[in-house]
């Protein structure tokens, strides 16, 4: 992608140089030829102004459309993550980046990734708006509190690349950075295995699911009737009031923090809010667990 962005940039530069020449060559010529006191033919020209105006309105207009299309198409590709990717979560806070790998490894201000694989980051912020900027990959995404945003890239060359925060976030904004460390796949595996925690993201999520009491209602054999979560992730959920929403990360997050806002059809509004009782990292773990449940068959369907 970085190469394609550079190509578009080059295209824009060439068009700009062309325009600059189009304006400044004739201008310089006029400034010289028609400077006051220099004899020159100054008899007024007879010419239909509107014809000229139409020409220099229409031609740039088509050029603009072309540039728009080129850039929009590339942007569309950049914004759609591929289906299979290594996943990691990023939480921004004043003034650091906290990263969790699906395998459970955690880092701060560093992100180790293998070369040749697509990496997909799901990101949010604990406090103000930050922006996860990877200049080497020509990528930037604002990290907004209360929202999940994604960014993906495919590193090809081993090395260390800058992470910058690009949205002003307070006193140490310029210190909120770090490095992406791209490693050969084998080296990455070694890195992953050294200091690997016993629980991966899904296992941590499962533990939290019990500890926070979620399983009391959302798991089998309970008195309170709450929706079972097997087979929910990634599927449409009918809500009270007739809307249908997609059960994605954002929906699950909102259901945990603001349960009253979107109630699944057929269930009562009885769930307490977990706002303030669960951290952003823990939320990512619980979501990873519920996502994992998504691959399992719903017990109700199974009957």
């Amino acid at each position, binding site marked *: 992608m970085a190469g394609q962005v550079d190509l*578009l940039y080059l295209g*824009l530069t060439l*068009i*700009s140089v062309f*325009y*600059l020449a189009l*304006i400044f060559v*004739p*201008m310089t010529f*006029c*400034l010289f030829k*028609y*400077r*006051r*006191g220099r004899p020159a*033919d*100054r*008899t*007024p*020209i007879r010419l239909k*102004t509107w014809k000229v*105006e139409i020409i*220099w*309105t229409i031609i*740039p*207009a088509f050029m*603009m459309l072309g*540039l*728009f299309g080129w*850039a*929009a198409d*590339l*942007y*569309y590709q*950049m914004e759609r993550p591929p289906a299979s990717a290594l996943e990691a979560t990023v939480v921004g806070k004043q003034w650091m980046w906290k990263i969790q790998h699906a395998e459970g490894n955690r880092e701060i201000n560093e992100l180790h990734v293998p070369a040749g694989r697509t990496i997909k980051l799901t990101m949010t912020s604990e406090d*103000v*708006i930050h922006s996860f*900027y990877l*200049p*080497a990959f*020509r*990528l*930037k995404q*604002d990290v*907004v*509190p*209360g*929202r999940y*945003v994604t960014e993906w890239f495919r590193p090809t060359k081993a090395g260390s690349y*800058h992470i*910058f*925060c*690009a*949205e*002003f976030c*307070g*006193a140490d*904004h*310029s*210190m909120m950075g770090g490095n992406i460390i791209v490693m050969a796949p084998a080296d990455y595996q070694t890195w992953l295995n050294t200091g690997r925690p016993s629980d991966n993201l899904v296992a941590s999520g499962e533990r939290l699911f019990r500890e926070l009491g979620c399983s009391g209602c959302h798991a089998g054999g309970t008195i309170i009737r709450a929706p079972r979560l097997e087979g929910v992730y990634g599927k449409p959920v009918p809500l009270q009031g007739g809307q249908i929403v997609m059960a994605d990360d954002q929906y699950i997050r909102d259901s945990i923090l603001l349960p009253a806002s979107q109630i699944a059809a057929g269930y009562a509004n009885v769930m307490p809010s977990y706002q303030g009782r669960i951290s952003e990292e823990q939320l990512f773990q619980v979501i990873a667990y519920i996502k994992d449940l998504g691959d399992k068959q719903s017990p109700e369907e199974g009957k």
Partner: protein
Amino acid sequence: MNATGPIKAMAETEKNYLTAGHTLGSWLFTTDHKRIGILYLLSILLFFAVAALAAAVMRIELLSPHGHLVLNETYNKLFTLHGVLMVWFFLIPSIPAVLGNFVIPMMLGARDVAFPKLNLLSWYLFMVGGVLVLYSILVGGVDTGWTFYTPFSSTYSNTHVITMATGIFIAGFGSILTGLNFIITIQKMRCPGMTWFRMPLFLWSLYATSLILVLATPVLAITLALMALERIWGIGIFDPKLGGDPILFQHLFWFYSHPAVYIMILPGMGVVSELIACFARKAIFGYEWVALASVAIAVLGFLVWGHHMFVSSQSIYAGMVFSLLSYIVAIPSAIKVFNWTATLYKGSISFETPMLYALGFIGLFTIGGLTGLFLAALAVDVHVTDTYFVVAHFHYIMVGGMVMGFMGGLHYWWPKISGRMYPEKLGQLAAFITFIGFNLTFFPQFIMGYLGMPRRYHNYAPEFQIYHVLSTAGASILGVGYLLPVIYLLWSLRRGKKAPANPWNATGLEWQTPSPPPVRNFETTPVVITEPYDYSTELDEKNAEVENA
């Protein structure tokens, strides 16, 4: 523009607007649009000086990657101060409130603006706002950046956000009243024969600017008020912890601030149209197109705010619509540049200081505009937004464009304002120094922006240092370019050659009254019978030959 009727220069003994009263009260309670223009000139120069000083400290700081001159908090306060003062207290009032106030009524053949007392109220509101902003700096400053992004500004910042926002809020009402005054003045006070398409293009551009001032500024007031509600009483509007949406703030803020960008360039375009016509001795090529392009820019300018938010997490389809509209808004600007260039063809061009600034404007504005195409390109914007590329881009438009336009206009109308001529050679030298210094300051910023240098960084990666050093070197040259005119213009007030009524031999009714003008501008109301920019190149060439002989 020739006019019939007895518009003879009035006797030298009659009092002009400068000699009509010498007390402080005669200035502070004046309703004369010319004096109010001078009041604005002095106040914006004060704000410019403070904001420029902040820029100077930042540029020195950035000489080293790990700045040791100021603390990080201080640096953040410096760029906030620089942005707030430059945008709201220098650029927005610069051409409209100073030059516009001074020349609009005279260009129209009127005695004053439609509501002279309201005009004075505008200045007082502006000053109350400005003083509040200066006060917020003295008691400790603000660190949010001029954009006040939430929830940082509404919840997290521990600085004097409310005081500064209140200052901007109050000054905004001054802007609204000025806009209203100009619209009604241009609409209702044109002298006999001054039809819409006989108006100088400066008036067209200020008419378009005033529309934006009236329609957009209230949205800024609302946005700042909502931010204050959340900050003071914790009413959840923007902070997700309180149930709000931080992106909503950006939509509201840019709904004002993008049109405001056009407030900061359209008047410059208007000045340049006057200067090109006068110093090329030609009617502006495609006059109607240039006039209507101003209106088109003002209207389309309201539809592109989302291009500031391509990476904010707004919908990608919204991003595409805003990108397309941003390309469309570039077209009327391009039309203007083409028409100015075509105006030079078969002209009789001379290179006095105002013309040098006008040519500098076209060059720098064109680069600023073309780099706007980079930023409107979605995939490129993802990389360069919030980097020095953006910083360079908007400085090319606002400093390279608007400030060059302001300086050009100030020199052009200086004989009318002060009754004295400025020293020509020094003027040309200053224009030249400004152009060189400006490019050296801001061109390296395009490069480091593309290389990934984020904006608003106090510490930065060492590979960017070379570009920062170049930029700081350029800024010191630019400083000389700005200081020089202050010195020689002040000098010219006493020592300058006395200016005739029409030193440039220009059309335009403001040149048909003595320099400096009498209080009432015209003894009798002028009547316009010719088209605008009724210059004759052949006649001028004959005169030039006679002079050379």
